C-alpha cells in the first residue's frame, strides 16, 4: 500500500468533531463536553461579520477548526471565483487549518449560484476538467485539500466510469485527499443498488483523511441525504467497516437540518469517538 496522503502531509487524526452551526454559536464555545475539533462551512464565515466571527474566534481558541466548503464549484464550467478563493485562502490561514475540503460536484452555472451539490457525469472528460482545477486551488490556498464523495440521486448522462473509479481518477491525478462521507456511500448504494462495502473496498483508502457521518431521510422510493437525523445503525456498521481499513481518521457528525440540542449532537460525536478508540486498541 502506498504511503497515506495524511502521512505524506503530516496530518494526524483529530478524533471526533461536530459542525459549528448557527444554532450553536453561543452554546458550543462554552460546552464542557468532550469535543476534539470543529468543522465550519466557510461560506458562512467568508463575508458575514458579527456573531459568526465571534463564534468562530471562540471555537478557534479551544479546538482545531476545519473548513468544509459547499461553494467552490470545483467541477463546474465557470472559472473559479477569484473573490471566493482569496477569502477561503485567508480563512484557512486565519484558523490555521491543517487541511480544507469541498465536494466533487458543481454548484454554479453561467455565473448563477445554484446552492446545491450537483453531480457530475462519471466520465474521463469530467476527470480531465476537474483535476487541473483541484491543483489550482491547492496551489493558491497552500494547504492539503480533500474532496468529498457527494450523494447523488440521478446518474448523469454519458457516464462511462464506475463511481469509485471516477473518484479514484480525480483524487489520484490531482493528488488530493479523500473525505469519505460514509452516509453518502450508504445512501448512494441504496439508491443505485450496489454493495456499499464493495464500493468502500474499491476506493483509494490510503487517501482518506476524514470521514463524515450523518442522518438521512427515508422516502418510499429514495433516500435523501438531509443531515437531518441521527446516524442510522447501518451507517454506523459501515463506518466500523471503513475505519477497520483506513485506521482511525478524523470523523465528523454532520447535522444541518432539524438540528437537535447540542448535547444530542455531541452524544453522536461521543459514539464516533468510542468507535475510533476501539479501532486504536485493535
Amino acid at each position, binding site marked *: 500500500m502506498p504511503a497515506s496522503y495524511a502521512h505524506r502531509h503530516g496530518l494526524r487524526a483529530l478524533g471526533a468533531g461536530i459542525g459549528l452551526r448557527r444554532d450553536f454559536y453561543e452554546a458550543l464555545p462554552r460546552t464542557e463536553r468532550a469535543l476534539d475539533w470543529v468543522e465550519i462551512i466557510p*461560506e*458562512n464565515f*467568508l*463575508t*458575514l*461579520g*458579527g*456573531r*459568526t466571527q*465571534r463564534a468562530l474566534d471562540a471555537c478557534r481558541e479551544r479546538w482545531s477548526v476545519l473548513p468544509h466548503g459547499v*461553494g467552490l464549484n470545483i467541477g*463546474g*464550467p465557470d472559472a473559479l*471565483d477569484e473573490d*471566493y478563493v482569496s477569502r477561503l485562502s485567508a480563512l484557512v490561514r486565519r484558523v490555521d487549518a491543517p487541511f480544507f475540503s469541498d465536494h466533487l460536484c*458543481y454548484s*454554479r*452555472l*453561467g*455565473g*448563477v*449560484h*445554484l*446552492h*446545491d451539490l*450537483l453531480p457530475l*457525469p462519471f*466520465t474521463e*472528460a*469530467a476527470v*480531465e*476538467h476537474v483535476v487541473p482545477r483541484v491543483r489550482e486551488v491547492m496551489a493558491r490556498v497552500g494547504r492539503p485539500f480533500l474532496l468529498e464523495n457527494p450523494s447523488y*440521486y*440521478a*446518474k*448523469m*448522462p*454519458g457516464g462511462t466510469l464506475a463511481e469509485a473509479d471516477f473518484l479514484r481518477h480525480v483524487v489520484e491525478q490531482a493528488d488530493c485527499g479523500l473525505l469519505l462521507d460514509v452516509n453518502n456511500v450508504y445512501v448512494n448504494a441504496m*439508491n443505485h443498488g450496489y454493495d456499499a462495502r464493495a464500493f468502500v473496498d474499491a476506493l483509494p483508502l490510503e487517501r482518506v483523511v476524514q470521514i463524515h457521518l450523518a442522518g438521512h431521510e427515508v422516502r418510499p*422510493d*429514495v433516500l*435523501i441525504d438531509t443531515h437531518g437525523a441521527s446516524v442510522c445503525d447501518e451507517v454506523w456498521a459501515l463506518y466500523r467497516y471503513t475505519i477497520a481499513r483506513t485506521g482511525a481518521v478524523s470523523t465528523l457528525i454532520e447535522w444541518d437540518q432539524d438540528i437537535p440540542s447540542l448535547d444530542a449532537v455531541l452524544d453522536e460525536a461521543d459514539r464516533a469517538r468510542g468507535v475510533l478508540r476501539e479501532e486504536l486498541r485493535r
Partner: protein
Amino acid sequence: MTPELKHFFDSMGAYFEGVPEGVGLERLYAAHPGWQTPRTRTALYGGFVRGHVRGALEKLFPLSRHAVGEAAWDALVEEYTRTRPARHYEINRLGEAFPAHVADRVEALGLAPHVPALARFEWADFAVFASEEVAPEVVERLTANPTLTVLEHAFRICAHVRAGDARKVPDAGEELALLWRHPGQLATFYMEATPSALLVLKMAVEGLTAEHVAAATGMSEAQVRADVVRFARDGLVLLPPESK
C-alpha cells in the same frame, strides 16, 4: 473542456433557468437521447435548487411573507427565482435584490403599499446583523456605529415591526429608521429617528462637543451628555474610554 461536457453543462443550465418543471425536464432529456435515469430522480435537483431560494427568502423576509399572504408570496418567489438568480456564494445574499423585486410587483400582485418598505427593512435588518464592519474596541472621540443604516419610508415601519403582527397595516407617516448592530450583543437594534438621536449622530459625525451643542441649541449641557450616554449604551454611537 470537451464539447460533450460543455453540452452537459449547457443542458443543465437551461433546466435550472426556471423553465416550468415538466417542460424543462423533457427538454433536458431530449438533449441526452438514451439517458435512462428516472425523471423523478433528476427532477429532485430542480426542486432542491428552487427550494434553496425559497428557503432563504422565507428566512430573511418572514414579515413580508405574512403581509402578502401565501398566494402572492408564491408568485413573488417564483418570479424572483426566474428573473434574479443568485450571483453570490453566500446564500443569504440572494435576498439582496428581493425588496426591489417586491417594489416592482406591487401593482401587478395587488400588494399593500407598505410591503416594499417592510421588505427593505427586513433586508437591512439582516445586512446590519451580518455586516463585515467591525466596531473598534476603543475610539478616540464620539463615533457613529459603523454598521449604522438609515432607511426612509412613508410608513411607521419601526413600530409595526416592534408590534410583531405582520397581518396589520402600519400607520402611514414619514419615518427615518435607524438600524445598527449593537457592538456587545451583536444583535440588530432599530428605532425611528428622534431629534435627540439625530443630534447625537450629528455630534459624532461633525465632532461637536456637548458644550458646543448646548450653546447652539439652548439645551442644558447635562441633557446633551445624558443623551450621548443613553445612545452609547444602545450602541448607536461609540464613546471614548474617558467618557464612559
